[in-house]
């Protein structure tokens, strides 16, 4: 009997991704429940970013299946990308365009003509709306990248180390925003910031060598730190 009638926002079955001879992901099974926040921890090269890029449809799996809302990706077509927002290591913002021009461009790309003002307000960049993106600081750029990813109100938000480059206030603001949208939006987040990650997470996983080494709900920050150290020792 299925106790959870809501299909997962994103799921992967026996997912493998190879780059030449090396495998970034090795037959992993993964599920992100709708409206929940799932945080991925792991060392650099563990496969976290690869999983996010596959979930974002920017990488094709070598084998395995992926599902969005219970439907196979192949059956959903291009429209599935309307559900997805991605904050990557790169901002996806055009340096020669202004802050507001970038937001307007991405709104048009998603067939919408509103949301820029709200995004500017959240990113705290109203006073810099006519500044070229090239002139923004790293923290401002990161806030704008998050605002861009949320512009079309995705139901699946993917964030790859979003706290990188943010000051304490901006990090708090981002955590608050993510807590606010949780429920409506499923969040898959990778981070090395254990405290912030655990505070947000409904579920955590630790990836190591392309496999899920640990997966649980309710783990504390100290448990995660201990597990990360143990996994590192075993991997040596």
């Amino acid at each position: 009997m299925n106790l959870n009638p809501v299909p997962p926002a994103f799921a992967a079955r026996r997912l493998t991704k190879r780059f030449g001879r090396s495998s970034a992901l090795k037959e992993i099974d993964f599920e992100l429940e709708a409206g929940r926040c799932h945080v991925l921890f792991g060392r650099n090269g563990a496969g976290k970013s690869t999983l996010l890029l596959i979930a974002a449809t920017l990488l094709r799996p070598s084998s395995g299946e992926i599902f969005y809302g219970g439907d196979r990706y192949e059956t959903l077509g291009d429209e599935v990308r309307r559900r997805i927002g991605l904050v990557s290591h790169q901002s996806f913002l055009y340096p020669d365009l202004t802050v507001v021009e970038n937001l307007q461009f991405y709104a048009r790309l998603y067939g919408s003509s509103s949301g820029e003002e709200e995004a500017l307000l959240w990113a705290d960049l109203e006073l810099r709306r006519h500044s070229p993106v090239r002139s923004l600081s790293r923290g401002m750029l990161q806030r704008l990248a998050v605002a861009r990813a949320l512009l079309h109100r995705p139901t699946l938000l993917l964030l790859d180390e979003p706290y990188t480059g943010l000051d304490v206030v901006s990090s708090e603001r981002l955590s608050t925003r993510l807590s606010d949208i949780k429920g409506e939006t499923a969040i898959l987040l990778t981070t090395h910031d254990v405290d912030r990650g655990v505070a947000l997470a409904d579920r955590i996983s630790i990836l190591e060598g392309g496999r899920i080494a640990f997966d649980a709900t309710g783990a504390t920050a100290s448990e995660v730190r201990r597990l990360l150290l143990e996994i590192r020792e075993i991997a040596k």
Partner: protein
Amino acid sequence: MSSYPAILAILRKDVRTEVRTRQMISSMFVFAVLVLLVFNFTLFLDEIRAIELGPGILWVAFVFAATLGLNRSFAIEGENRCLSGLMMAPAPRSSIYFGKLLSNILFMTVMEIFVLPLFVVFFNLSIWELLSPSELATFFLVLLLGTVGYAAVGTILAAVAANTTMREVLLPVLLFPVSVPIVIGAAESTRLLFDVDPLSSPWIWIRVLLVFAVVFLFVSWLTFEYVIEE
């Protein structure tokens, strides 16, 4: 979602970026003028030789200059990995190709509008006197087909080259051999139009141009999604 909003958004964004930076059109224009100048001062053509060689020189200037612009076209998508942002749009990924294609055609056309009068002056070829109104219309058709054909193959090869570390070198190496039918077709049909022999007809070469432009567009539409994926 249909492709049109994404195509128009990309075209509009590229035009806005170009208006702000003026990098693409200005570099294409300067390069085309330099090519014309070099040929003008090295060949010393009289009117008859100018009719024979001028069309080839004109198209060499156009395609060399256009290659500079095509390189820049995907370079701006590489900064901050904006291409991934475009790939996240809920539209067929071929709409990225058509958006970039339209902006490349627009920028090449603007460059040609500025370069053509200089060609007339440098080579003392009065196109308006040399060509009848119908031939003039055919000449503009050749310009259009040559531009569309070269941009069609250039846009997809620029996307291929953009994913490599030697982008600036790779694009001409890939593009020049593949675009030979377009360049020859455009140069030959222009030469036959300029030719005073009443029996010369450019239409066989115009058909070649049309066929290659359509083939390049079709193949690019089919393959673009695979080209831009890592």
